[in-house]
């Protein structure tokens, strides 16, 4: 190529579209397209693979957590308690009657009668509480001799599901032969709370704690975040001070979550003397963490509303508030929802800040209000994963499944709402 006089060269030479050089360029371009497509596909395939792996492992391990192994125990209650007349089981006298029954002693006697001196090894240490719960659910059982199904020890449970110690395997074989053992759906896991015996623990306490915490977070972070975004976008003057606020919000969104835990500890517990381990404090702390995410997403969504709509509204004499609430926010809502989903999903899975404010407490009853001691799903998973008892392994996986289902249903609701609010252009 003659560098000395390019204009003349281009003017005199016609581009050779069919020439070899051009064909090579075309081939290179196609190769680049194919390469890019391949890399993209590979990226999608790898992430799908990881997702599938996660789901298969989780469901495979966790599904067993929803199944419980139970053995029979025949209890002759009238013989053990003396005769209880039907009218003692009615109305106000019922609770007194039930309290007078020493279920634990009756359970021990029945086990020895049916399975011999070492029979207690077949059952979970808290199996008697299952017997108590069944009696409370159905007091008329007190009147007769009944065959109960009660949870087995965690060794036998594992023998039934997988493999266990040789003694437990042998015990399980004996029980199976006599038809004294069965596997059934573990309702207790969905209705109970934390405990020391894996056979009797449940997820409901942590699930309810998570629910209350999320509600607190949403009701605080969403309005505050959206209002802050609207003010910053629509009203605030552009100056050094608002620039500083913008930078601060962006930085806040990137602060590690455990720092928010320390902040919650210092502000809510120390300074404001709020109750420790409460869902209220957890919700407040997570709201601090979620708010910047919502502010950023909402500002971007508001920015994306075309100025022509604002002008149109102002042109017919809408006041600034009317412009925002009648036109800008309705159009920005889908984007705001997306940001909120991301923020809430992050808050739902958060463990570290909640440890800081004491939500790792051992709570055996579900929280009844904002200030009751509570724990949340990810913290519960963390606690169980730390347990020595092997029976907690499958409970941990099962709890993870519950957390994922919670997360997915939360997202599904949000996506549904977003689609409903989406305006067709």
């Amino acid at each position, binding site marked *: 190529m003659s560098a000395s006089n390019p204009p003349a060269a281009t003017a005199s030479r016609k581009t050779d579209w069919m020439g070899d050089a051009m064909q090579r360029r075309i081939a290179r371009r196609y190769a680049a397209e194919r390469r890019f497509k391949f890399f993209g596909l590979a990226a999608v395939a790898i992430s799908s693979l990881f997702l599938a792996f996660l789901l298969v492992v989780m469901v495979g391990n966790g599904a067993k957590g929803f199944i419980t192994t139970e053995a029979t125990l025949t209890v002759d209650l009238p013989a053990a308690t003396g005769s209880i007349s039907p009218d003692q089981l009615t109305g106000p006298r019922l609770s007194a009657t039930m309290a007078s029954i020493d279920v634990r002693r009756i359970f021990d006697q029945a086990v020895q009668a049916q399975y011999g001196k070492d029979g207690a090894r077949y059952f979970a240490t808290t199996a008697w509480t299952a017997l108590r719960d069944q009696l409370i659910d159905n007091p008329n059982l007190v009147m007769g001799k009944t065959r109960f199904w009660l949870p087995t020890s965690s060794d036998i449970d594992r023998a039934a599901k997988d493999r266990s110690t040789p003694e437990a395997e042998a015990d399980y074989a004996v029980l199976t032969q006599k038809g004294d053992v069965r596997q059934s759906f573990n309702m207790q896991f969905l209705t109970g709370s934390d405990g020391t015996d894996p056979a009797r623990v449940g997820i409901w306490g942590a699930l309810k704690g998570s629910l209350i915490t999320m509600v607190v977070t949403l009701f605080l972070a969403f309005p505050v975040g959206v209002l802050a975004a609207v003010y910053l976008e629509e009203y605030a*003057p552009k100056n050094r001070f608002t620039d500083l606020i913008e930078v601060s919000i962006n930085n806040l969104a990137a602060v590690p979550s455990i720092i928010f835990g320390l902040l919650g500890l210092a502000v809510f517990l120390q300074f404001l003397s709020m109750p420790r381990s409460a869902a209220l404090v957890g919700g407040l702390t997570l709201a601090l963490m979620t708010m910047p995410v919502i502010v950023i997403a909402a500002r971007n969504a508001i920015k994306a509303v075309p100025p022509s709509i604002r002008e149109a509204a102002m042109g017919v004499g809408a006041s600034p508030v009317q412009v925002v609430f009648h036109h800008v926010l309705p*159009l920005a809502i889908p984007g705001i929802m997306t940001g909120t989903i991301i923020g809430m999903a992050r808050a739902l899975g958060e463990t570290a800040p909640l440890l800081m404010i004491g939500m790792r407490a051992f709570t055996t009853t579900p929280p009844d209000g904002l200030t009751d001691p509570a724990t949340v799903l990810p913290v519960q998973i963390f606690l169980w994963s730390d347990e020595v008892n092997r029976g907690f392994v499958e409970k941990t996986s099962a709890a993870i499944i519950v957390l994922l289902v919670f997360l997915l249903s939360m997202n599904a609701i949000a996506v549904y709402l977003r689609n409903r609010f989406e305006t067709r252009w």
Partner: protein
Amino acid sequence: MLDNTATTSTKSKMSARDVKVFYGEKQAIKGVSIDIDMDNVVAFIGPSGCGKSTFLRTLNRMNDTIPIARVEGDITLDGENIYSSSMDVVQLRARVGMVFQKPNPFPKSIYDNVAYGPRIHGLAPNKAELDQIVENSLVRAGLWNEVKDRLQDSGTALSGGQQQRLCIARAIAVDPEVILMDEPCSALDPIATAKIEELIHELRGRYAIVIVTHNMQQAARVSQKTAFFHLGTMVEYGDTSDIFTNPREERTRDYITGRYG
């Protein structure tokens, strides 16, 4: 420059005196004085960037939304200064309606588009009257026959020309006194343009109308008075027929004969 405003009459609806607009340090309008009356459609013509749209937007204070914009001089509506503190800008924009360059219906139903203004200003005490306002506005905008059976359809589903007439219906639904049109036909095809022009003829007399246009044939067709803007000044203002056949200023002649712009 002052003799350009010789058309001042007692019945002028809006008048501007020595209006200057600054964007930060840059002066976009350099002292414009003009009178707008109810009987004549006024067209602003001039090359791109000459300030005609900027000036139009000072008439209903749309420039207020630009933080760095600053307006000097007096603009009055029925003798009342629209930049005085006693003037409510929200009400002003209802009294001085606006139609924009690109049709910008709300992403709502046709009915709600037209009913929005009357609703926020409380012009209709009940549903029946609101229905009547919507119908009248659509009739006056020449859109009623095309949309009367689908008032609940989205306004954005209409064709470009229909959308622009919907925007005009939306503007006249709040019963304004002045309608400002900022190149209302620049995004439309010739047939839709002809309909809008016809509509402007019909609306004349009922509202004071100011139209900014790039299209000189359009200015000649729809307006009775024309103002020629150039580099932030109003070069000439007079009867449209005079401007196009016998301009006083050299620059006006050059522009309308296509020598520049």
